[in-house]
């Protein structure tokens, strides 16, 4: 499995976190992730993350919905079984706009939420390794990935110098697995079994 070693520092103020993120990047460390209890605007830019394309996906789902509604209704009411409703034309586009609009919205929202869940690996019974449970409460957690070249002690003291509290070296599973949060699982052991 992908158990990796990280240097983890916690910050209790986003005003300290921001300059720290920039300095860490400047110093050449690889930021694995920053975990925050709420969205911090601009942090993604500071970390050098690219913009999300979720909007584009939403647009594509939306036009799929539009095309589905218009295509299906016009096929059903003009070709498959044309019915005379009060002498109106078979192809009565204005009357189809409400359903077309609703399906556009429906496809776009459902598609976007599913895509969001897929991209962020979110689903019921998905379990992940958490560095610090307080990162959903009041601390901002920066995790640096240790590569072969990283000097752990140096990274720890560097984070401390930037204002991080409670800095430690931690080994964590980077990926998700199916599991429940009320059960402790020892992944290290599993790893050995897989390796053996």
């Amino acid at each position: 499995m992908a158990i990796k070693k990280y240097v983890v520092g916690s910050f209790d103020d986003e005003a300290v976190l921001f300059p720290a993120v920039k300095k860490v990047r400047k110093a050449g460390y690889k930021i694995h992730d920053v975990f925050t209890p709420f969205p911090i605007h601009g942090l993604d830019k500071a970390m050098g993350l690219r913009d999300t394309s979720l909007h584009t996906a939403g647009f594509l789902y939306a036009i799929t919905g539009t095309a589905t509604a218009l295509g299906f209704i016009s096929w059903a009411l003009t070709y498959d079984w044309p019915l005379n409703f009060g002498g109106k034309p078979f192809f009565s586009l204005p009357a189809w706009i409400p359903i077309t609009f609703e399906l556009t919205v429906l496809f776009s929202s459902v598609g976007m939420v599913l895509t969001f869940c897929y991209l962020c690996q979110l689903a019921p019974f998905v379990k992940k390794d958490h560095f610090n449970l307080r990162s959903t409460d009041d601390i901002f957690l920066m995790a640096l990935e240790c590569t072969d070249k990283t000097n752990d002690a140096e990274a720890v003291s560097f984070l401390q110098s930037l204002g991080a509290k409670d800095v430690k070296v931690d080994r964590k599973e980077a990926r998700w697995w199916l599991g429940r949060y009320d059960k402790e699982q020892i992944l290290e052991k599993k790893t050995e079994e897989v390796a053996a």
Partner: protein
Amino acid sequence: MGLIRYESQIRPPLVDGGKDYHQISEDICRPVEAKPSRAWWIGFIVSVLFLCFGILSVTMEVIYGTGQWNLNKTVGWGYDITNFVWWIGIGHAGTLISAILLLFRQGWRTGVNRAAEAMTIFAVICAGQFPIWHMGRVWDAFFVLPYPNTRGPLWVNFNSPLLWDVFAISTYFTVSLLFWYSGLIPDVATLRDRAKKKWRKMFYGVAAFGWTGSTKHWQRHEALSLVLAGLATPLVLSVHTIVSFDFATSVVPGWHTTIFPPYFVAGAIFSGFAMVQTLLVVTRKVLGLEEYITIEHIDVMNKIIILTGSIVGIAYLTELFIAWYGANEYEWFAFRQNRLNVSSPLGWSYWIMMGCNVLSPQIFWIKKMRRNLLVTFFMSILVNVGMWFERFVIIVTSVYRDYLPSAWSTYYRPTIWEVGFYLGTFGLFFTCYFLFSKFFPVIALAEIKHILKRSGDVQKDRMDKLEVQPNEEFAEEHSHDHGA
């Protein structure tokens, strides 16, 4: 001496009590983690009893048919559709708060949006019951869906407003649910990480979908909320527009008017905000969340109530004027004889509507009244009574005396099972709301933390000090920051 202003001083703080992030988690999670209070149990049990009576009423209707209701040849839509439109209207305020106010960047929405969205979902569930059980042969309800059937396939009538309703309501429910739950995931994760008991870890662990709070995930989450808000905004307008089409596209005097879509949407938001007030005035008190749902929040929502109430008032008067000016004798009869005339069989309902919806909200021009909780609570009930009568007036007074006097049914009175069905949806609504307030945070945790530094009173205090600081001194202190 120049002044540096970070934020308008006109805006009062949205979070009181000098909170920090951890304190916010503590305060908002406390009701979820503590044992339910006696008040909660009483409320919950009463709601469940109402729900049971509702189930009994619906069962009677299913066994013996819609004849259990006092609907007749002209009053084909009575209590049931009135209640449908009423509930669906109530739902609209939740979407308005969560979506439209997000687009308008209104910070105060964060205190009330989660509860309001939950209210939307429960209200839409209640609303959906009425058209479904009104079908009579409810086991054939799936006939409204365009599925390939053995009758041709014979498709549903895509040109019919009633079918538009099927699509509008189901889309509205789905999108509201997704919007609500995707916003709830990070807050559920907070509960999961605070959990001590086994079942809590299990329950919130499953419900939080494995949320970590990663920056990349937050970035996508923000994008998702923004686009969903952008989609939900026209959606919520379309839903009540389509509901109004159910009436406006018919040729029934009193229904056949072009003013209906905007009039219905304004009315929906009006009644929805009243319901939000009813719920939140009680919730903040019972759960001790006065520092998050402040008097400011109540005040702004009362302003929206007076705005939408006045729009509704203008719509009533316009409709009345056009009924006279349009010189259609049937239309004018519907207004003059069935509504304006107090001594007509149902004329009183028109004046209850006018009194509750147009006159009574005017009290909110007075600031003291807007900020008075008792007045707010009383008014919120009054507005919802008024809005119920609006739908009753529109539906029943239009159809009970139509073109053919021999078919008039001058006194429509609901049976116990019609009333029971309505009371049952109250039970359903409040059962859901009680469960929600017990198991989920009623305030959007992450969003409150997000605005804390901008709009909390801690920040306001700090800014007050900065405001009186001379520019030169401020520059001296902060000029070296940007290199960081």
